């Protein structure tokens, strides 16, 4: 076991709901500054795992910790971006972010507002500060959600299929924004857990990919990535190493699905 205590650590983690095992025997260590993409099909428990790291759900078995301390409840250190609802619909963008800052940092109202403006500028929303979520496109809402998550001074960012509902163009530009914000910051490395079911997205973003198999959710592949700098998106995806990785992950996926099908077929035949 590593001596450093920074980052996330799950030990023999298990979670079941209504007697059904959702996650089983998860052993995972995510070091500080890593950008981990969590891949898995629907029902593989990837959102549950994210909620456990966020402290929104408590495990039934095993231990889960952040910087060596047991995770018991949500904290601003571990900020979350959900797919489509990280902002309160009755508050403007600025009010949403300001509220989060005021609740998590002990700062004056004026300072909180100022800080909120800074973070909204950072994600390119300086002209929509006083708009309500319903007045914004899905992409802009997610930019706001990311600004809110970062504004509270998070050391870890947990993103649950944040771009799943976006069109490809918005999606690509938000992926680049996340890369810039999470992997670009050298003085303050942000540990990121990014849940997605899009293999290309995972490969593009991650410094490491974890693939979850389903029923019950368990880690079936753990792949460190070390790719060249992403300069041009389409060129980057044509890179041979990148394509090989995508194929390898697809295979790991399919193998799990096929094994499960085989298991069901055998089980059926034995009756």
């Amino acid at each position: 076991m590593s001596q450093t205590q920074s980052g996330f650590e799950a030990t023999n983690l298990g979670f079941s709901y209504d007697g059904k095992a959702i996650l089983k025997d998860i052993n995972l260590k995510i070091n500080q500054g890593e950008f981990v993409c969590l891949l898995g099909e629907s029902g593989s428990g990837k959102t549950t795992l994210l909620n456990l790291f966020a402290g929104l759900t408590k495990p039934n078995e095993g231990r889960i910790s952040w910087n060596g301390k047991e995770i018991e409840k949500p904290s601003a250190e571990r900020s979350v971006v959900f797919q489509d609802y990280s902002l309160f619909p009755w508050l403007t963008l600025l009010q949403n972010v300001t509220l989060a800052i005021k609740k998590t940092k002990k700062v004056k109202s004026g300072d909180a507002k100022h800080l909120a403006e800074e973070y909204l500028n950072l994600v390119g929303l300086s002209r929509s500060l006083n708009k309500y979520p319903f007045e914004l496109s899905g992409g802009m809402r997610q930019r706001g959600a990311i600004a809110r998550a970062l504004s509270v001074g998070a050391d870890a960012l947990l993103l649950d299929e944040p771009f799943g509902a976006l069109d490809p163009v918005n999606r690509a530009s938000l992926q680049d924004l996340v890369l810039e914000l999470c992997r670009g910051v050298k003085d303050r490395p942000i540990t990121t857990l990014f849940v997605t079911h899009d293999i290309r997205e995972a490969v593009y973003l991650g410094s490491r990919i974890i693939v979850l198999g389903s029923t019950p959710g368990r880690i079936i592949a753990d792949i460190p990535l070390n790719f060249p700098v992403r300069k041009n998106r389409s060129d980057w995806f044509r890179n041979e190493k990148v394509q090989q990785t995508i194929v390898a992950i697809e295979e790991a996926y399919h193998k799990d699905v096929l094994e499960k099908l085989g298991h069901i077929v055998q089980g059926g035949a034995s009756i």
Partner: protein
Amino acid sequence: MRTFKKYLSKFSGILFLLFLLGIWTFISCGPEWSSQYLFPSPKAIANALFDSREELLRSAGASLLKLVPAYLVAAIVGISIGILSGSVSWISNMLKPISRFAAPIPPNVYIPYAIAILPTFYLSSTFIIFIAAFWPIYLNTAAGAADIPEKYKRNAAIIGIGRFEYLWRIALVASLPSIFSGLSVGMGLSFIMLTVAELFGENTGLGHFVQFYADYSDYPNMVAGILWTGIVVLAIMELFEFVKRKLLFWTKAN
């Protein structure tokens, strides 16, 4: 032809009102079988509205003096308990049996008892209006607060909103759509109970005005009282809708 149809459709509401007014006018001054006495002409009613304007205003004032305090207290109590009951399971469990039993009791059956135990008729009327408005407001608020999407709760937990703050900052706001449907039902019921109470034995208010002139067989004034009541209720409902639109602007997209 097309534009004619368009205009006909656009103004059909007003045209239909004019049509009804025509029928009334015809009945009031026309055929032998009708009675001008029981069906006063529109002109007589308009005169009554004008001549009794001060008394009508006073009656509306007296009615509002009963309605508004009772309704506001019902709204404050109903919304507060509703939010608590929708958010805290032991409070919900505690209140469920009594609300299941008491909410469906028609509020007018309390009238005799209210008159017997409360010192003034004013208090009995306001108590009945309170009861009428309270249950729908409470029940709708509680249902709304119990049904707050998980997403808002998680969101609140993430940014560190505590249990107490959650009640007013999240539960209260997120339940506003249900709260307003309760407020609206409660408003309708409290109007009914207000006028019922006034017809019974009050000596002020809109219900009393109508009953008073009916007793003297002054039908122009009586009909004027009914029309005026309609106007007052309509004005309050419009005001209500205005406030509702202002507060629920954010539900447009959801």
